[in-house]
């Protein structure tokens, strides 16, 4: 069937199998390979993207279900001039990654979390990331990164929203 998506602000359209999963549409059709397939069983969160602004696991969604929707992957976060999204910048500053495999999903899960709750407590960040696994067990600095953005947006309330589609 024909599936049309707005991916990172650009229209992508293709005829695909009815059974194609969103993650494969993003990787194989749109050519955006930052979104990883990890466990492939809705557990690890490596494939997390934003669907109409909310975090979802793209390994557990048919591309057909997302037809007509807007999808943001981690490739779509930074500004055109390369300025990192505040969550990406915080991962860099807080050393929020080790091997990097879970990072795209972690970043997207945190972007979604902060949209729903801009100033989360540490406990809220930890439970908000319950759907994302890091096999390097680097959780502590990932949580620090999320909290750093939460504090930053407390001081400069619009910083996280400026200059990007988010």
């Amino acid at each position: 069937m024909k599936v049309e998506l707005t991916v990172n602000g650009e229209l992508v359209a293709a005829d695909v199998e009815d059974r194609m999963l969103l993650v494969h549409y993003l990787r194989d059709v749109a050519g955006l390979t930052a979104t990883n397939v990890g466990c492939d069983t809705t557990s690890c969160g490596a494939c997390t993207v934003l669907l109409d602004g909310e975090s979802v696991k793209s390994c557990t969604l048919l591309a057909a279900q997302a037809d007509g929707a807007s999808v943001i992957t981690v490739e779509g976060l930074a500004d055109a001039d390369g300025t990192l999204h505040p969550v990406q910048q915080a991962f860099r500053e807080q050393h929020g990654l080790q091997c990097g495999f879970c990072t795209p999903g972690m970043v997207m899960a945190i972007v979604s979390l902060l949209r729903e709750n801009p100033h989360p407590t540490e406990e809220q960040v930890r439970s908000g990331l319950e759907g994302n696994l890091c096999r390097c067990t680097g959780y502590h600095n990932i949580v620090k990164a999320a909290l750093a953005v939460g504090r930053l947006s407390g001081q400069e309330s619009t910083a996280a929203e400026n200059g990007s589609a988010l």
Partner: protein
Amino acid sequence: MIPAQFSYRRAASVSEALDLAAEYGEDAKFLAGGHSLLPLMKLRLALPEVIIDIGRLRDLSYITDGGDHIAVGALTRHHDLEHSELLARELPLLAHTAGQVGDPQIRHRGTIGGSLAHGDPASDLPAVVLALDATLVARGPAGEREIPSGEFFDSLFETALQPGELLTEIRIPKPPVRGWSFQKFTKRAIDWAIVGVAVQGNAVGLVNMGETPLRATAAERALASGAGLTEAAALAAEGAHPSADINASREYREHLARVLVGRALEEAATRA
């Protein structure tokens, strides 16, 4: 992993969904959020030939106050249950438990109707609707009918829904006794409960303690006849036939049920 071949049809209305279901019969499955069905299809444990996507029927996504009851549309997502002020006020057991399902990503997609119609005894919400004495409303070729939650869960992954019937609404009476609690024991945060317990007043629902979600009737009877919480909790596993699997033996599940029912009754008492 990708699912086996199927044809995808998207319903634009409830009547179109019912027409499609009538056309394809037992070869078809409804797809709501897809977070129970798609994982099974990827594992080839479910092989529907036709998928009828009902995920866009927004008129089945609502939470309304019906006076003596709350009406919840079957396509209301866990995320919306979790953040509903009306539920937080009137049915905190449902709002809280919806926030314990899976993880945030799953709650952005999964729906209450999908979870109930899937009929998995390890899911959280079936035990909650049992403890709340909900009524399930289904629409089919012969019109609408109401199914008491106590008659809805037939066996493992089997419900009273007939082929061609669509679960449309969950009606939940406002509970006469306010005290509530939900307890679940998992190894990882996002796992299905090894055992879970939903308590509203003296009603006790059990997660993953048998082929279907069920009520802890022996414990409920003890409470009704004036037994203390500890005495009632000791009866939590009476009449249940939990399975043994990689996570727990039958005996361990029975032990967990007694411990968790005890904790749930104590917590509910503090909220009564």
